[in-house]
């Protein structure tokens, strides 16, 4: 039923996205990009693609960071256009998508301020997709006083809810008779990466429940599937990264941290939770997820995190494996009809494309030999289809 009326409100936005499908770089174009010998050459190549307009005004020897910013700006412009054309649920949905980037931006700002990086540089590096007006006010942050940051600035923002939950949770986890000092210590030791992961977890759960409650059945089906996998990937990543992590010295601490960071949704969640929380080696993790074929296959090729020192460029890390698998899923979901999955997939696949271009730009600017394994380390959207 919802397929009949999908086009009434969201047909135009979907049509735009379908049209933008043509802007993805093809495998042949990636091949040509790999053959570029210098950054100006890469830039002039990109000028022949859909990225033409966003690069024209720049100087040919464009630094990678600015290149990334330009590409992201283009994506953000497209996204903003679609957002402006959307109505009702779709607008809310698209806004939810943007929250992920806002979280990234806020955490990046916090991290930058902690490291005493100039605010102007930080502001110029924020992801345009996750821009919101309050972001410049994060400057107010003093030391590690996250609660006052929340109270003064973030409370009004879309991600304020997540931040509040995060603060509450982290304070609750302290022992009973906590003092103000304890809380300050907690914040001082807290790594921005930790904040990011827990905020994103909350966002994911929130987004999941939004999709569950407000979307039409077709969109729901497509999106819940994607989000479940994303949640599972997050879980696996958290567990994987916490194996052999030196900051978490006691087993109890590992488990509480994991419990805080692992999303409470997904295929793995209630059934395997006990097992994976306890997993202290890669094999144990493999054992924990063996219920789902897919993850077992993925983890089969992942290198052992206990031997992190031995990793080099050639190693296909867990992230690479997962991106690869995600990319396949998103491409499939992009071709699904009449669902909101296409917007999500578009965003993700474009992100992947930008990552690819930046990666190649890095490779080119470092003038690495053409037989270097790094050249193969890109995941081309839609390349999984039609094979």
């Amino acid at each position: 039923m919802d397929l009949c009326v999908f086009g009434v409100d969201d047909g135009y936005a979907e049509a735009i996205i379908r049209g933008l499908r043509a802007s993805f770089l093809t495998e042949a174009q990636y091949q040509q990009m790999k053959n570029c010998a210098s950054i100006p050459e890469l830039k002039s190549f990109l000028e022949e693609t859909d990225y033409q307009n966003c690069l024209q005004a720049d100087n040919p020897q464009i630094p990678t960071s600015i290149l990334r910013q330009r590409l992201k700006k283009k994506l953000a412009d497209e996204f903003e256009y679609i957002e402006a054309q959307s109505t009702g649920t779709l607008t809310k949905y698209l806004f939810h998508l943007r929250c992920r980037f806002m979280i990234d931006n806020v955490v990046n700002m916090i991290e930058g301020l902690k490291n005493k990086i100039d605010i102007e540089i930080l502001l110029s590096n924020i992801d345009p997709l996750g821009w919101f007006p309050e972001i410049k006010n994060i400057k107010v942050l003093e030391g590690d006083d996250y609660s006052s940051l929340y109270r003064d600035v973030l409370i009004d923002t879309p991600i304020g809810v997540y931040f509040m939950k995060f603060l509450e949770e982290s304070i609750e986890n302290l022992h009973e008779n906590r003092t103000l000092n304890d809380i300050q210590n907690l914040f001082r030791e807290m790594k921005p990466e930790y904040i990011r992961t827990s905020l994103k977890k909350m966002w994911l759960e929130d987004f999941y429940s939004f999709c569950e409650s407000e979307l039409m059945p077709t969109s729901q089906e497509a999106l819940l599937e994607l989000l479940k996998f994303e949640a599972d990937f997050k879980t696996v990543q958290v567990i994987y990264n916490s194996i052999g992590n030196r900051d978490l010295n006691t087993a109890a601490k590992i488990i509480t941290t994991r419990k805080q960071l692992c999303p409470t949704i997904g295929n793995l969640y209630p059934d395997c939770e006990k097992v994976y929380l306890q997993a202290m080696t890669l094999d144990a993790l493999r054992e924990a997820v063996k219920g789902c074929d897919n993850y077992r296959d993925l983890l089969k090729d992942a290198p052992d995190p206990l031997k992190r020192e031995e990793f080099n460029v050639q190693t296909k890390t867990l992230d690479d494996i997962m991106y690869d698998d995600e990319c396949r899923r998103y491409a499939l979901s992009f071709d699904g009809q009449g669902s909101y999955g296409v917007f999500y997939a578009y965003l993700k696949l474009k992100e992947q494309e930008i990552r690819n271009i930046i990666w190649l730009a890095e490779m080119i600017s470092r003038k690495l030999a053409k037989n270097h394994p790094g050249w193969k380390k890109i995941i081309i959207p839609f390349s999984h289809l039609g094979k």
Partner: protein
Amino acid sequence: MSFFRSKKMKYYSLVIPRESAWVVMDQLGRLGQLHIIDYDPLLPMMNRPFANYVKRCDDALFKLNGINTLLKQFKKNLIYCNDTQKLLDKFRDIQNLRQKPGHTYFDEIELEIENKKNNIQEMSNNLQNLLDRVDSITEQKLVLEKAKEILGKSIFSQSTPHNVNDYQQLKFGQLIGVIDKEDENRFKRIMFRITKGNAWVNIVDLLPEKQHHQIKNQIDLNRVSQPRCLYVIIYPGMNDQSTMKQKLLKVCDSFCKNRIEYPNSEEAMENRLKDLNNQINETQSLIRMTKKQLEISLDELVREKNGCNCSYFEQLRLYVLKEKYLYINLNYLTMQGSIFTGYFWLPDGLEVLVEDKLRQAIQNNIDRFPTGQIQEMKPKSDILPPTYFNLNEVIIPFQEIVNTYGVPRYQEINPGIFTIITFPFLFGVMFADIAHGFLLLLTGLYVIFWKKQLSKQTDSMFNAMIPFRYILTLMGFFAFYNGLIYNDYLSISLNLFGSCYHPKNEEWERTLNCVYPFGIDPVWLASGSSLNFMNSYKMKLSVILGVTHMLFGILLKGVNNLYFRNYLDFFCEFIPQLLFMASTFGWMDFLIILKWLNVYPDKFDPSIIETMINQVLKPMDETSTPVFLNNASFQLQITQVLTIIAVLSIPWMLLPKPLILGSSQKKHKVSFSEPQYQKLVQERQGSELEIDPQQFRKDLQSAASGKSIEQSEVEHESGEIWVHQMIETIEFVLGGISNTASYLRLWALSLAHGQLAEVFYDMCIAGKLDMGGIVGGLMGGYFYIVFALLTFGVLMMMDVMECFLHALRLHWVEFQSKFYKADGYLFVGFSYNQMLSEHLKL
């Protein structure tokens, strides 16, 4: 005759030494008759020898574009060039004067553009900065003035408290600044949260426009400035070190940098304001100066230079365009060592001109490098030459009608030539009305005779009609003519020559041997059966026209077959098709005319449809109502013969051609085993840009064993030929019937047109004529206006369009499907003139 068939083309190879490439190409571009073929269409533009030059040209154009926006901002009107040939001659003269290699002129121009652009950019940036400064100073001034109003004088007279705890003596600090209007609410909220409500925040809109309205007008730069607000915060505590002040400062700074120190005494305040006023005046005079300078350098670009009849800016732009075009075409050639090789098509007989140009190239070349060489070649068998017609203004729209469907194959009969007359005629049959046709004719003639004046009025509707003036005139003429034939003047018949009937005893009697000389006797309109009569007449007429049109199309196919020496198609397709059409619908037309010519006794008038149906259903029975008067057996004999011919011609169309082709291919198979040249790489996909060594080897192998590939292709083909022939036959036989029926639209549209006209006339004019007196006059006037508007809107606009579209369809589908292959491609000459005239205006 280069309009009946496209011009003969010859294939040449072109070899140019690297050193004289530019000069030679420049000369050839002036000639404009070469259709240069891309040597390797799969090679990406980036990898071609002159890709860099093309890019430089693009950059230069980009810079020029930047300058142009500035020119527009300052409302400088460029003089556009209107004679490309003259401009090209000027370019050549400039080159000749320089006495340096021609291609270096672009370097100079590029440098000049770069300098000009930087210069202008710098000045406009300066101007921009100065304006910003004025803005910010004015804003400061405004802020101070407003703050003074808000805070009053008492703020200066706070004295240090003796007792800190005495809140009556509490001192207040203040922060003043400017934020964007859209941040207003957020600002208030954050302030409230930070101070927990312990500060007084006052926000006032700033309206700077009023203040330096005057300057803005002078500058004419459309700068959008966001609305801004002034904020004043009063908070308890004056100490600089207090945490609240630090925090407030931080927040205010995070919103915007525009925080303003408020002077701490009245005197200081006065001084600040004075100071600011001085600054504004200084900056304004600076602005005026910069603007003057900028205008001078912009004017330089607008002025004519070097005797070209256009602005210097246009001259630069067109030169860069020309250069880019040259390099793009040069990129179609391939570089082999120090020479460029390529292929091009040339219309027959122009070889002398090209050689002449090549000789000129060596004369113009200062370094006397050897010039290019051309040599006639045999074209590769798989490429057809381009289609090239010499067109003039009359036939361009007709050719355009044909090309929209498909460009004629090389040397194929061009349907465009027949379209010139058949298109307006068929349109006229549908739009037949003396008055409407005459109006259309007048419109066409008006545009033809007032062309010069009209071409200056760019916004006039007639200006848009200029390219179509001849087709309009012809359409109008034929509508007028057919209107006379149908005797239809806005749904009234004209009694031009005196009717042959006169009323007698309540009935109409015909004068003996009287024939109405031209068109339909007006008396028919008065008769009750006028619609029936006209319908039957128009229907028969349209079938006759349609069959004639189609038979003509089939004949053209025969002529084409003979021209291309395709005797197989001539005997196995053309002849049976012609016979089929002639013996069925041709025969029907003959019967129609025969019936018109005879007078039949009562109850013996034949029905043509019945005759046609019985021809097939009852082939042995003589009809009781023969079309041939009193000669039923003769008619039966003819129908029998014709039916047999029509039936026989169907298998004739279907069978022989594939059989003959199949057997000839069997013979050919033997010859395929002989070594033959073949494309080395079979099909290079666009994606495999780097040659995979393995693939390359495979290609080599397959080229060596070319036989196997060919054989499989042959088997594949013979099946395809059968299917193709079957489709052709079915399409022709069924199409013969449906196309004939399709021509009935000639009748249908003319009927619709006539009925519409009648309704408008009856409703608006005829009924109102009876009303007498002043009221009747007024009503008549009013309804005349309604009638005129309806006639104009519905009949002269919508119906013209509708009839046009239907005439278009009759040509594309019914006529052209009989013979027209339409798989050619247009000749695109490497011509400066053409390219420049496309880019004359930005």
